[in-house]
C-alpha cells in the first residue's frame, strides 16, 4: 500500500472513487464513464491546486516520502548495466548509507555517489536510514580521488536527514570525515554536479555538496537543521516543525533565492514518487546539460568556478 501524506488525502479519496467506479463498470454495472471523466477532471484540478500550494512543511513530508526514487534507482535508471559499484573506505569499513562507483550516463563516463535510503525495514536499517558514517564520506573521498585521476566528472546525489552521530561515528571522526570530504571536493579539477533529490539534511548533506552546478528537485528540501530540531530550540516544542519549516526557508525556491541552488528540476504532478521513471529521466536531461556546459571549462576554471561560487554564499552588509 502506498504511503499517503495528510495533504494528499483529498487526492487519495478521489483516486479511490475513480477506482470504485471503474470496478463497477468492469463488473458490468451501469455506464459511469461520464462520472469517471468528471472525477478524473476533479483529480487533476485538486492535484494541481495542492501541489502548486504546498507549504514548506508539506515539502518536508514530500522530501522524506519513502516512495521517492533513491540514489541507486537514479543510477540504475541513468546508467543501466554500466554501473560498477565500488565499496569500502580502505581504512575501516564499507558504509551502505553512501553508495557510489563508475558509470556511463548518456555515453559519458562519470564517478557517481550519493546517500542511499531504503523502503523496507530491513533495508532501512542496513542503509542506516541514509545517515552516513565516517566510512561513507571516506569512500566518497576515495571516489573523488579516482575521478581526479581518471579526469572524470563527479555526480553527487544528496538524500539524507543527517549524518550518523552514534558513539562509533563520533569515535571514528564523523566531523573530520565531513570536513575532509568538502575539502577534497573543493579541490577537484573536474566538473562536479550536485543534485539534492530528497532531504538535504545539514552537515550530512553538504559533506558531499560542493559542486560547480547545484540542482534540486522541486519538492526536495535543504536545511541547516531539521525543522523539528529547530522548533525544539526556538519554542521548546518539536511538534512545531511546520512553523520552523517556514522560518528555515528550506524549499527549492528558497534555496535558489538564497543563492545556493542553481536550478530546480520539476517533478511530475504529485511528486517524484508518483512517476519515478519520469523524474529520473528529467534528472538525466538536466545532468547531461549541466555536464555539457561545464565541459567547456579548463581544470583551473572548474576549480576557480566552484571556489568563487561558494565564496559568494552568505548575506551581510559591508
Amino acid at each position, binding site marked *: 500500500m502506498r504511503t499517503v501524506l495528510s495533504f494528499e488525502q483529498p487526492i487519495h479519496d478521489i483516486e479511490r472513487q475513480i477506482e470504485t467506479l471503474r470496478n463497477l463498470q468492469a463488473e458490468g454495472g451501469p455506464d459511469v464513464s461520464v462520472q469517471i471523466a468528471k472525477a478524473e477532471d476533479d483529480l487533476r484540478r485538486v492535484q494541481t491546486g495542492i501541489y502548486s500550494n504546498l507549504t514548506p512543511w508539506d515539502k518536508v513530508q514530500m522530501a522524506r516520502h519513502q516512495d521517492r526514487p533513491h540514489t541507486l534507482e537514479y543510477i540504475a535508471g541513468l546508467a543501466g548495466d554500466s554501473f560498477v559499484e565500488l565499496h569500502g573506505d580502505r581504512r575501516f569499513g564499507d558504509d551502505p548509507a553512501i553508495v557510489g562507483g563508475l558509470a556511463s550516463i548518456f555515453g559519458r563516463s562519470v564517478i557517481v555517489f550519493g546517500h542511499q535510503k531504503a523502503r523496507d525495514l530491513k533495508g532501512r536499517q542496513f542503509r542506516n536510514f541514509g545517515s552516513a558514517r565516517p566510512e561513507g564520506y571516506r569512500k566518497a573521498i576515495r571516489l573523488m580521488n579516482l575521478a581526479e585521476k581518471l579526469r572524470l566528472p563527479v555526480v553527487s546525489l544528496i538524500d539524507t536527514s543527517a*549524518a550518523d*552521530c*552514534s*558513539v*562509533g*561515528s*563520533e*569515535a*571514528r*571522526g*564523523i*566531523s*573530520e570525515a*565531513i*570536513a*575532509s570530504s*568538502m*575539502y*577534497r571536493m*573543493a*579541490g577537484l579539477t573536474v566538473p562536479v554536479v550536485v543534485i539534492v533529490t530528497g532531504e538535504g539534511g*545539514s*552537515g550530512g*548533506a*553538504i*559533506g558531499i*555538496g*560542493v559542486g560547480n552546478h547545484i540542482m534540486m528537485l522541486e519538492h526536495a528540501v*535543504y*536545511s*541547516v*537543521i531539521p525543522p523539528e*530540531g*529547530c522548533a525544539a*530550540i*526556538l519554542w521548546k516544542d518539536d511538534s512545531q516543525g511546520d512553523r520552523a519549516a517556514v*522560518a*528555515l*526557508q*528550506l524549499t527549492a525556491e*528558497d*534555496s535558489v533565492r*538564497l543563492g*545556493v541552488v542553481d536550478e530546480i528540476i520539476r517533478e511530475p504532478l504529485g511528486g517524484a514518487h508518483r512517476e519515478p521513471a519520469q523524474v529520473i529521466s528529467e534528472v538525466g536531461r538536466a545532468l547531461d546539460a549541466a555536464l555539457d556546459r561545464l565541459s567547456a571549462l579548463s581544470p583551473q576554471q572548474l576549480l576557480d568556478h*566552484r*571556489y568563487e561560487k*561558494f*565564496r559568494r*554564499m*552568505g*548575506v*551581510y*552588509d*559591508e
Partner: protein
Amino acid sequence: MARRSWFSRAAGRSGRDARANAERVPSDLFEQCPNRSCGIFLYRKELEKDLKVCKKCGYHFPLTAVERINLLLDEGTFEAFEFNLKTGDPLGFPGYRETLERYRAKTGMQEAIIAGRGLVGGTNAAICVTDFSFLAGSMNSVVGETIARTLEEAAAARAPIILVSGSGGGARMHEGLLSLMQMAKTAAALERYDRAGMLSICILTDYTMGGVLASWASLGDVILAEPGANVGFTGGRVAAKVQTERPPENFRTAEFSFEHGMIDRVTPRSQLKETIARLLSISAADKVRGMAKR
C-alpha cells in the same frame, strides 16, 4: 611574558558558565569552579593570574575572544582585520535581530568572531577566534566570511594561521542554509590556503561542535584542544535519542578526540602559547638550508 597583568585588558567579563549546576555566589572577589566534583571558590585575582584555570581541579574557565587573543599573542602586537561585515537577517528569522542585539549588549562584540594578525613568540601569524559567549560562537555568514577573508589575507602574506574555535553552536540556525554553506566556504578557503604552503593550527576550546567541528576546526595541519573541552559532532540532547551503544565517560571531549586520533594534543592553557610558538617557529624558519624551493 609577564603573566600577572595579561588579563587586565579584558577584565570585567567573567565569561559564560559552561557547566554550571552549582549555585554561584555573586561576588566581585570570588568565583566558584563550575566543575561539579570541585566547586571550590577561587579568588578572582588569583584565578586570572592562573589564566582562568582552577588551581584545584584544572577546570578551564571559558575565555572571551579578546582574552584568548591576549593569551596567545605577544603583548601589543594584535592588529584586528576590520572587514566591517554587518550581520544580515536574510531569512527574517523569528527573533534573530533581537537575539543579536541581546548578545551585542551582553558581550560588547558585534559578532561571534574576532580576526586579525599579530606575533606569537615573535613569529607573524593570522588569527581568528570564535567566542562562545556570543550566540554560542555559532557560524553564520559573517563568521564564515571573516574566516575565508582571513585565510586569503594570510595566504597573500604567506603567514601561518591560528583558528581558535569556541563554536558550540555549530552552524547558526538563524541564517538557515546560508550558515550551512559556510561549512563548505571555509573548507574551500582552507583548501586554497593550503596551496600557499603555510602552517594552519586549530585550537579547540569548550565548546566546539557540529558544523564548525565538521568544517574548519577539523582541517588544521595541527589540532590542539584544551583539557576537558566539549568537542563533538552533535550535542548530548540530539544524540540521546539515537544512541544504542553506551558512550564512554569522556565521550565528546578533547580527551576522547585525542584517544581516537582526531587531534594532536590536549594542551593545558598554560602551555598553549609556547606550543604554538614552537610550531610556528619551526614551520616559518628559513627553510633554504633544508629545501630547494619549488
